[in-house]
């Protein structure tokens, strides 16, 4: 009997998961006459089992244990909207600060939700802050997403197409913000004061079914005008400025976004999204009756780097990251596609690289995946910059040369003791004297350029070459020269891959090589990852290189988790808090003159993934990458001491973090929720 019992219990494990599908299945079955008999058999089986189960029910105390498990879990779980409704509180605006006041329905005046108070009290809440002008009216109005329409005024077909896609994505976000696809509990609706304290606030139908009011607006028209540039390909010369104004006349709200390019217009949409919020009193979207924003970025290159070699990240996770970048107006996704650990990219020309280098068949990116990411990124205003790091940081995936008669494509692969031949295990460095190696690189560049579209910036990697590795194989007296030659050869191959045109900006990581002048400063841009106080910062600028700052002491988001190896110190502890990221202004601290300041293209935060995988990607990146977004877009001046932040920044970033969470990004908490509900009290 016991056997029988446990047997059936196993089967029932899969039960409740798909109840609905099961019923549908059942229904279909009953339609088929030939299957009716089967159903009867099943039914009688069920009755039998029921009897068995009933008979088996243990009485007494322990029965309670199973009740705990059978109970359907409360509405707080599952697909609940990521932001809870907070009907406990109403907010009063005092001295540009929202004050939390306990609210009990019926007793006092109309409740004001936190977000509505925040959006109408004190500062304009746009992250990153507009640089030229931002004004909003005190008066607000409400609407539902269905009335939002687009009108485009542009002579450029491609711009039109991308704008439409960007607008669709904007609407999708609004729909999410308005929680149209989520159920709400009666407690949250505030329908019954007494029942809100009982635990059985079960789900009711969609929040809006049958009771949605249409709000104060009859129509909301977004009119986007892009006249000047028809470019939808990224370049450092993209004009990202935009102007946004909203005017309301007799219940019709007109949003005008004017920009010189698609990219500016997209940023305008992103700003518009931040001028709209959801109010849980009327379940509608709210916005200002009038507003005016004029905005342009301080830096052209506002990047975020993700390493997909130390750990693999799914296309979905990458897209989620890019969505967050769009909201923070970051515009370059630097995809550190490969490294010595793994080679996840399946090359059309050389699938052997992934076959030998990916962690597994499923931990790979196809060309189609890359294109999908690129297309997605474009409508979020983000350029994808893939990097095949070379000649160092390459190993696994490059070991099949001899088998194909192509000689050693790379050397020192996985060599031990690793500390002699590379900076971190496993070792590996490309063979600088094998023509096949260059040919493969050329083909890879070609494929990636085809996937990303024309660009004036490409990343060649080029850092941390271990000369002792090469010294085992080559007798050259000038191994550094070999390294330099490699980079120049890679540049030549890139030119061939790019239809004979060398992209204007060739990015390489700062290294011993960039401290010499062997790479021509007219073509190479250096991504500086050393300490922000190092001499190389000054030298590179003096030597005429363009630079992108990624200082390890401020913008390395992977730091602070201790050493992942059993030996050696943690490379770059401590953790960089969002305040560290935000307050880093190397161009100010270095007191750059006008000319040198122009050589600073911008900055980039880096997430190396030795100690990160998809499970915690979001909270490693956000909201810290958002802090970088404002630093590079607005570059607000900062007269405070090292660890003091303006209260206004706390308030805005807290709202920005909420917006990220609202859109499904698992951003880390900035502080206790109490501090979010009581702006200014925890500072």
């Amino acid at each position, binding site marked *: 009997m016991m056997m029988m019992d446990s047997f059936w219990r196993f089967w029932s494990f899969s039960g409740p998961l798909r109840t609905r599908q099961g019923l549908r299945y059942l229904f279909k079955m009953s339609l088929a006459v030939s299957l009716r008999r089967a159903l009867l058999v099943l039914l009688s089986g069920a009755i039998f089992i029921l009897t068995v189960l009933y008979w088996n029910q243990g009485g007494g105390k322990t029965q309670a244990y199973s009740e705990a498990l059978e109970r359907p879990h409360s509405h707080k779980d599952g697909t609940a909207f990521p932001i809870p409704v907070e009907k406990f509180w109403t907010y009063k605006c005092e001295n540009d600060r929202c004050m939390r006041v306990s609210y009990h329905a019926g007793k006092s005046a109309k409740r004001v939700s936190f977000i509505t108070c925040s959006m109408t009290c004190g500062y304009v809440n746009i992250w990153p802050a507009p640089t030229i002008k931002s004004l909003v009216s005190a008066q607000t109005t409400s609407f539902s997403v269905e009335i939002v329409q687009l009108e485009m005024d542009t002579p450029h077909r491609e711009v039109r197409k991308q704008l439409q896609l960007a607008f669709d994505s904007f609407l999708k976000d609004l729909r999410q913000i308005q929680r149209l696809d989520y159920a709400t509990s009666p407690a949250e609706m505030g329908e019954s004061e007494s029942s809100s304290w009982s*635990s059985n606030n079960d789900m009711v139908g969609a929040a809006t079914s049958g009771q949605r009011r249409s709000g104060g607006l009859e129509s909301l028209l977004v009119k986007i005008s892009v006249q000047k540039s028809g470019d939808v390909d990224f370049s450092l010369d993209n004009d990202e400025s935009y102007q946004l104004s909203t005017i309301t006349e007799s219940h019709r709200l007109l949003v005008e976004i004017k920009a010189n390019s698609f990219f500016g217009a997209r940023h305008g949409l992103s700003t518009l999204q931040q001028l709209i919020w959801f109010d849980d009193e009327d379940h509608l979207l709210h916005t200002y009756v009038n507003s005016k924003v004029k905005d342009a970025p301080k830096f052209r290159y506002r990047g975020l780097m993700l390493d997909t070699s130390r750990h693999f990240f799914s296309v979905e996770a990458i897209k989620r990251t890019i969505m967050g970048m769009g909201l923070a107006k970051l515009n370059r996704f630097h995809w550190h596609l490969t490294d010595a650990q793994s080679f996840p990219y399946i090359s059309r020309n050389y699938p052997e690289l992934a076959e030998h280098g990916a962690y597994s068949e499923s931990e790979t990116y196809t060309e189609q995946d890359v294109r999908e990411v690129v297309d997605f990124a474009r409508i979020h205003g983000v350029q994808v910059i893939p990097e095949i790091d070379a000649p160092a940081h390459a190993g696994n995936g490059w070991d099949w040369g001899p088998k194909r008669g192509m000689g050693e494509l790379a050397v020192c692969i996985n060599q031990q003791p690793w500390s002699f031949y590379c900076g971190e295990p496993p070792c590996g460095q490309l063979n600088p004297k094998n023509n096949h190696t260059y040919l493969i690189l050329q083909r890879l560049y070609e494929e990636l350029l085809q996937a990303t579209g024309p660009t004036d910036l490409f990343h060649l990697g080029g850092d941390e070459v271990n000369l002792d590795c090469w010294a085992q194989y080559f007798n050259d007296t000038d191994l550094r020269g070999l390294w330099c030659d490699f980079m120049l050869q890679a540049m030549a191959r890139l030119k061939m891959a790019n239809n004979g045109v060398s992209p204007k900006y060739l990015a390489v990581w700062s290294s011993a090589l960039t401290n010499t002048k062997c790479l021509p400063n007219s073509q190479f841009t250096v991504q500086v990852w050393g300490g922000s106080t190092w001499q190389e910062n000054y030298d590179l600028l003096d030597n005429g290189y363009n630079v992108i700052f990624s200082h390890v002491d401020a913008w390395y988001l992977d730091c602070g988790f201790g050493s992942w190896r059993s030996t050696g110190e943690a490379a770059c502890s401590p953790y960089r808090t969002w305040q560290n990221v935000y307050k880093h202004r190397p161009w100010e601290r270095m007191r750059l003159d006008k000319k040198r300041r122009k050589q600073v293209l911008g900055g980039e935060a880096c997430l190396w993934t030795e100690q990160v995988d998809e499970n915690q990607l979001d909270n490693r990146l956000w909201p810290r990458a958002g802090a970088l977004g404002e630093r590079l877009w607005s570059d607000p001046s900062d007269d405070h001491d090292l660890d003091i932040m303006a209260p206004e920044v706390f308030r805005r970033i807290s709202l920005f973090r909420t917006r990220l969470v609202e859109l499904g990004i698992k951003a880390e908490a900035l502080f206790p929720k109490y501090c979010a509900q009581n702006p200014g009290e925890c500072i």
Partner: protein
Amino acid sequence: MRFSGHNRYHCSTAPTATATATLVVCICLALAVGLTQGDDSAEVIASGSRKWFCSQTDICRPEDELENGVGYLEEHFESQRDCRLSCGKYGSIWPMPTGVECSLSHERVHFDPWKVRFHVVAPSEATTQFLRETNRLFVSNLLKECTRNCTLASSKQILVRATVSSNSLVLDWRTDESYSMVLRTTETATFVDIQAATVYGARHSFETLSNLVTGSVSNGLLLVSAARISDRPAYPHRGVLLDTSRNFIPLRYLRSTLDAMAASKMNVLHWHVVDTHSFPLEITRVPEMQRYGAYSASQTYSRTDAVNLVKYARLRGIRILIEIDGPSHAGNGWQWGPAAGLGNMSVCLNQSPWRSFCVQPPCGQLNPMNDHMYAVLKEILEDVAEVGAPEETVHMGGDEVYLPCWNNTEEIVAKMRAQGYDRSENSFLRLWSQFHQRNLNAWDDINERMYPSIKEPKPVIIWSSHLTVPKYIETFLPKERFIIQTWVDSADPLNRELLQRGYRLIISTKNAWYLDHGFWGSTSYYNWRTVYASGMPMGNHSSQVLGGEACMWSEFVDHNSLESRIWPRAGAAAERLWSNPKSSALVAQQRFYRYRERLLARGIHADAVIPRWCVLHEGRCL
């Protein structure tokens, strides 16, 4: 097909009224599952069809990467995980067993998890039922190990016989959690013979058994074919502290924390449910607490939630120890006193500038001169006693009292004067200790009434504080009644001094087991090796050490980052507390990485600790 962790019992225990319909659905689904049981799991064994070997130095290597001069066992394995099952004395068992005996055969049997049968020998209905429930949890965990199709056409039966001698379901510091397990395989079946004193020992043995299993590269699962293991924990208190007040943690994440603790054989969830910031717990006797103190109506725990959580935890061998912190770390939730005619129950509430009234915003401290406050607190404790198991005690908090708050509150100072206190530090300490003494009396009173069969008064737990400094503690806190949870630095002599004075301790070494560190102020992050290396007090009085807790304060985490902040690091603490190993983290690392993968398989978003390449290439990233 992935199996939902939370709903999996729905069918078999559905209320009778809907049972028939549900069962039909179950059967249909079971058939459907049987036909379509592919696996969309992201876990893929990277090894392909290579053979793996286990070296005498406990390293698993594929055949094309064997090193010269290193001895390898003859047996070969189909994957790295297969190899890890029995490579090294402890295979991939986490935490490592402590008994003299731990032998694992290198042979494995290929089996179908549906073919596992249980025979439970227990002295009572209640214990039998309990074990059946744990059997189900065990099987559902096994299913999560399947890398491909779980079902196997020709599988031997796995017959698990679990014998439990005690009919007690009591789970406290005296519970015997030991077990022994013998596995043998004959031509017809594999027999697993488990002996345990209590059901809790037996559930730990199932956890160990699940560590002897891994997915096969073909269908089904692999199980070590023979083993002898005896095991018992080094400490009876192996906990995780979870703060749900600074940021609210939804129930689902409390449950996932319990799941991960169960996988680590940890047995106490110290639920720091309330603090100054918010009061999310429903107190049925005083609904105002939650109404005035929670962040929102949905960010709350109802009575039912709490009771169910306790049950959920018990089935996983875990106690839930609720902490009602006071007199400090209390504020929001207590502000309704004046309106209700009960006076100020808390003082300094939400005062600013906060630096003058507390150590962390928002401020708030209970008013020890208000009898109504004690009355309310007693009702809260009554609720706590009701929610917990009969034998469960309470954590009274008692840390970081900011004396200037009381000293600056005219109402308190005036009453002190009237009662003959001066305003010396000693007076305030007396006041503070009386707070604990009164609450202890209330707790005793509640327990005598509620659980008259428990004769011995229960000790309560409080944090180390100004009150517990060695020169004061004996005056203020009798050692028979107060267990001290210390949260000092590893170099601090407090543990030794309190042990010498006869106090029982729970250790939460601040500079190793505070999992929130590294993200604020000048604190630094402790990686799993540091957590692992953090030693427990040894010496003459070490038997007074009940165990320890890894602490997850939630100022800078909410459910978005909770799991990865706690796990897998708390697992390193788990091995310290269960096994208290003399060996270092270096020796444990392969086992630890496998343990992390098991957490992932069970749906816990544990942090990555090393590049994947290093996990796949053992011993190459030292």
